[in-house]
């Protein structure tokens, strides 16, 4: 400590250079308590990430190559980008809209029931994998309870090309955790909208529509958008549920990666899996950047 003090006094007398140094010393010192955190994250997050990137550029003999990435965009792998992104967009959109509607109804209820709903939503948002698949098979499968009930009422779910294992089916299943996630994360933002503002708007002669467009939308847009983004990332990376539902029939990126590195289906394709994994990170980063841009633009406009 005494060293820093000495440096700082010096610098005040002698000019800019040493002050810079002293500032750097003290800023380094202020970083020390964060060392455990950064060390942990570096080892358990950044270190593995560098390995995926490294392996994505290696061939089976350990030589540098771009061929994994070329392979990524061909055939079923190239197609999987399209399917995964499209499915995630639709799932995020449905989850966001339905979740926002539900949240705006829930926000009007009492504190206690809101807490119970939030707790329930946190459980539902975490369902996935085999348990979720079974629930939907039991409910919406060809022999499922809901299917039978609907048929009795005159609506045959399976009259068309619908199966639970198609993209539409997957979107339906994902909704089971996407909607609760939206409710869970979007509700706090809704609770920040004060009833007084509605009264203020009314007293100033605003209509219901102007209130919605001028107050509610600008206020909630960032929260809505960021939660939608979270939903996108959530369905984009969902592996357990997709695996339990489709057993590989639908070309989703996580499933293909899983098969490449884990299954015995195709031998020696580990590095292609890594390249796909890097691409997935890339897609996420692009989506995140679009989000940041949109947010900035919406702020400028206001």
């Amino acid at each position, binding site marked *: 400590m005494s060293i820093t003090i000495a440096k700082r006094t010096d610098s005040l007398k002698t000019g800019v250079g040493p002050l810079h140094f002293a500032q750097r010393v003290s800023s380094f010192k202020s970083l020390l308590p964060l060392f455990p955190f950064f060390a942990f994250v570096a080892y358990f997050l950044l*270190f593995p*990430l560098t390995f995926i990137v490294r392996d994505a550029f290696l061939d089976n003999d350990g030589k540098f190559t771009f061929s994994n990435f070329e392979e990524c965009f061909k055939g079923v792998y190239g197609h999987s980008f399209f399917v995964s992104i499209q499915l995630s967009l639709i799932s995020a959109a449905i989850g966001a809209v339905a979740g926002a509607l539900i949240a705006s109804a829930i926000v009007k209820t009492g504190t206690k029931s809101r807490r119970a709903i939030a*707790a329930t939503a946190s459980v539902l948002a975490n369902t996935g994998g085999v348990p979720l698949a079974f629930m939907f098979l039991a409910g919406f499968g060809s022999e499922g309870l809901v299917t039978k009930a609907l048929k009795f009422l005159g609506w045959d779910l399976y009259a068309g090309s619908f199966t639970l294992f198609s993209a539409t089916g997957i979107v339906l299943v994902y909704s089971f955790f996407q909607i609760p996630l939206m409710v869970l994360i979007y509700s706090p933002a809704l609770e920040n909208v004060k009833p007084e503002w509605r009264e203020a708007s009314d007293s100033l002669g605003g209509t219901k529509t102007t209130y919605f467009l001028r107050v509610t939308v600008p206020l909630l847009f960032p929260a809505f958008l960021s939660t939608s983004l979270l939903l996108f990332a959530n369905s984009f990376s969902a592996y357990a549920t997709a695996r339990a539902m489709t057993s590989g029939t639908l070309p989703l990126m996580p499933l293909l990666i899983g098969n490449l590195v884990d299954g015995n289906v195709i031998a020696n394709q580990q590095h292609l899996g890594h390249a796909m994994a890097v691409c997935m990170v890339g897609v996420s980063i692009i989506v995140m950047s679009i989000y940041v841009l949109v947010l900035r633009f919406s702020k400028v406009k206001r």
Partner: protein
Amino acid sequence: MKQRLNFSNYIVLLAASAFFIFPMVAAFEFSLRINEGKSYGFANYRWVFAEDGFATNLGVSFRLALLTAICVLVLMVPTIVYLHLGGARWKRLVEFVCLVPLVVPVISFALGVGTAFPTFLQSTVYELSFLYVIVSLPYTYRALDVGLSSIPLLTLVEASRASGASMRQTLMYVIIPTIRTAVNGAIFLAVALSLGEFTLAVLLHWDTFPTWIANVSQGHILNAIALSVLSLFGAWIVVMIFALAPKSLRSNKIQEATK
């Protein structure tokens, strides 16, 4: 705060309830089927409890959850407290780092871990706990950050320091009790994640409760459905106890005290 719900609100809530309840009821109905669907009973549940894998794998998952919770407590609480005290200039960096897991799909992450980690780490199932800490970073960070923002942290810390407490004593006696709700929330998130996580466990070839359910489903479908119902219902009960517990346990008084 309670307001009147209008007609469309009721429609929305009704439709949502139907969407969530029907699959659960259907799964429950399936899980009760015995004798190839000819009659109902709890035989599928009894089978589950009798299996060796049930206790073993549930035990593994619980131990993972415990270690994850400890790591979150030891690593994240001091870090975020420091960001709110002297280290404010690093807040944005840490916040950014904590959001990184959101853009890294778990499957990509699992791949990297598989190749990067040395064997001594890969030889124990507890490596999963460290990874769960990473995956839960965005959520635990947020919970703790919000909790710390709602109290006059600096004054409390200085009062404690002036009373002669070390930083460790201040954390244990003052800060953690004061933000107990937030700490509980963060730990709860991490525990829920540990108990339900599938992707990392299966790709790193470990047997945990979720992977065991997946195994059971190969060949024992009704038993697996019974298990699914059990796990969902169990989680829901625990969460509801937390959420609706009497005030003293949730320590809402803190918010009142610091208004």
